């Protein structure tokens, strides 16, 4: 286990390094942040001073080295636009994104698993066919466009739900959250459902396939022969074995939800880190782009590792690499 964790950590560090070099050099080649930092009326002397104070006159590898040594001590540089530490900016906005992603994941599971189980148990029923049609649609609908249609229907036409912002928040362990107030919940409903839509379809399909496969296995036949009730067979035996592969998917999907929140946040003006990175890209705010990248790589590596470990716990047949 220890050697496994070690090799995974090493892999993460390597990914971080490669990604940071790639993005650093890439962004370095693309644009000159000086124009962004200065007003149009700046004198050449002021210009030179800014260039020197940000170290922009150094060769790229030296600038990278400075970035790297500072990064190791937790300093990812100041945002060119906000003139605040990039790390702080992102960490401030992270709870909003995580809240959105987790609520969407929860929605996807609560809606997707029961529908998938039903469709798997009665594949020929009319309801199951409608569920599967819905899931094909869910795969094909452009998420951002559905978000707009949802705003049009529920906010503009019906006026039921707000179209933007987080609403009223309360502090939970010092972190502002929306899901504990009624106002916050009403603000969460549309963006979270919008984000969840694609995942609902995915989970329906996976659960259905898992249930159908499980029903043909010997232990189900044995359970039936033993005279167990159908409810017990489905809820205990079938569901338990269906959920194992779902864990991997759920882990990976959590990461993808966080990434896709970029789109949802833009549509619903949700003040998360996705909105921040889109703005940073459009003005080439290099420190924020880099910091966002570093944080997501770390976050994803942790999620992936957690999934792998969890998987080996629920399914003892799975052995981790390097684990003897």
């Amino acid at each position, binding site marked *: 286990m220890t050697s496994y964790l070690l090799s995974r950590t090493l892999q993460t560090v390597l*990914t971080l390094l490669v990604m940071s070099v790639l993005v650093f050099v890439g962004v370095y*080649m693309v644009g000159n942040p000086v124009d962004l930092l200065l007003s149009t009326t700046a004198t050449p002397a002021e210009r030179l001073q800014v260039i020197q104070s940000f170290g922009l006159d150094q060769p790229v590898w030296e600038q990278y080295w400075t970035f790297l040594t500072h990064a190791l001590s937790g300093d990812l540089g100041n945002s060119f636009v906000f003139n605040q530490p990039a790390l702080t900016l992102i960490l401030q906005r992270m709870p909003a994104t995580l809240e959105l992603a987790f609520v969407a994941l929860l929605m996807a599971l609560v809606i997707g698993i029961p529908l998938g189980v039903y469709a798997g148990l009665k594949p020929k029923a009319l309801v199951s066919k409608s569920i599967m049609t819905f899931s*094909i649609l869910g795969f094909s609908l*452009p998420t951002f466009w559905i978000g707009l*249609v949802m705003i049009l229907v529920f906010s503009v036409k019906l006026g039921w739900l707000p179209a933007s912002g987080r609403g009223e928040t309360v502090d939970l362990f010092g972190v502002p959250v929306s899901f504990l107030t009624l106002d916050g919940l009403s603000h969460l409903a549309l963006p979270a459902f919008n984000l969840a839509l694609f995942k609902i379809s995915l989970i329906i399909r996976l659960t259905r396939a898992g249930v159908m496969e499980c029903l043909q296995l010997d232990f189900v036949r044995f359970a039936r022969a033993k005279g167990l009730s159908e409810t017990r067979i489905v809820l205990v035996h079938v569901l338990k074995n269906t959920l194992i592969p779902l864990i991997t998917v759920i882990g990976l999907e959590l990461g993808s939800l966080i990434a*896709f929140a970029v789109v949802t946040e833009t549509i619903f003006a949700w003040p998360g880190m996705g909105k921040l*990175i889109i703005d940073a890209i*459009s003005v080439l705010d290099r420190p924020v782009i880099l910091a966002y990248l570093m944080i*997501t790589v770390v976050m*994803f590596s942790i999620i992936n590792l957690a999934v792998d470990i969890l998987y080996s716990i629920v399914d003892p047949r799975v052995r981790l690499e390097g684990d003897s």
Partner: protein
Amino acid sequence: MSNDANPGNSVHSRDGADAERASRSPFRATLGALLRDRLALTGIIIVTLLVLAALFAPLIAPQNPYDLAQLDIMDNRLPPGSESMSGLYYLIGTDDQGRDLFSAILYGLRTSIIVGISSAAIALVIGASLGLLSAYAGGKTDAILMRIVDIQLSFPAILIALIFLAILGQGVDKIILALVITQWAYYARTIRGSALVERRRSYVDAARSMALPDRSILFRHILPNCLPPLIVVATMRVAYAIMLEATLSFLGIGLPVTEPSLGLLISNGFEYLLSGDYWISFFPGLALLLLIVGINLIGDALRDILNPRREG
């Protein structure tokens, strides 16, 4: 048809159908099966119509939406079914610059389809070559290539596309490149999986014992047998690439304003949505939806037809 007419003989006629299928080329057999599937047929009809509309956009469109001389700013944000001063009929309304939305959608479809297909095709060639190489070479090459694939696939496509577009900037060529970078790994993994199975088949041993060169074994013997799953993946990926391009353009980091794509049209209409001018965003989205649903219907049917393990 013969099955229905002669139910008592169904086993027989089924054998006949199989024999018939085997004697025809696999391409025609697959196409035949596709045309018999009602959903797939719907998909084929939708996609064909949209591709034709995009192809002949300059002939069908009542105006060239990107020739500023043809636009009349006085006609901006007219609802569907309006008529302009000059007598032009706006079937589904106009956008904020007085552009006929129907024409804009036809031109937008062009961009979306070109970007989707070319990025999927390039990613397929690169991914399939690397996947084949990985499976055939094995050992260290395989381990390194697959580790890269694993790491890349553990990040969502949109995140990787975002990063590369941040570096590359805007433009059709840039977004195609970004989409290729995000997609090649799917092809590589798919083809490696099937190539590993095929490699152990006796026909490969036979080819080896005839001292055929590696390249010929790889591309003329193993590759054709790996094609079915690759075709399924490619179909789904074209749809995904089109969706991803639209999403990125919607976010304002994909295609520049000078290149009309569906995502950009939807994005243009976004700010007028809250005041109730729904059509600027709605109709381009509908076109995008039809295109993606159509491709996915075909892909879904292809998976059922080409997957030998399918039930029933």
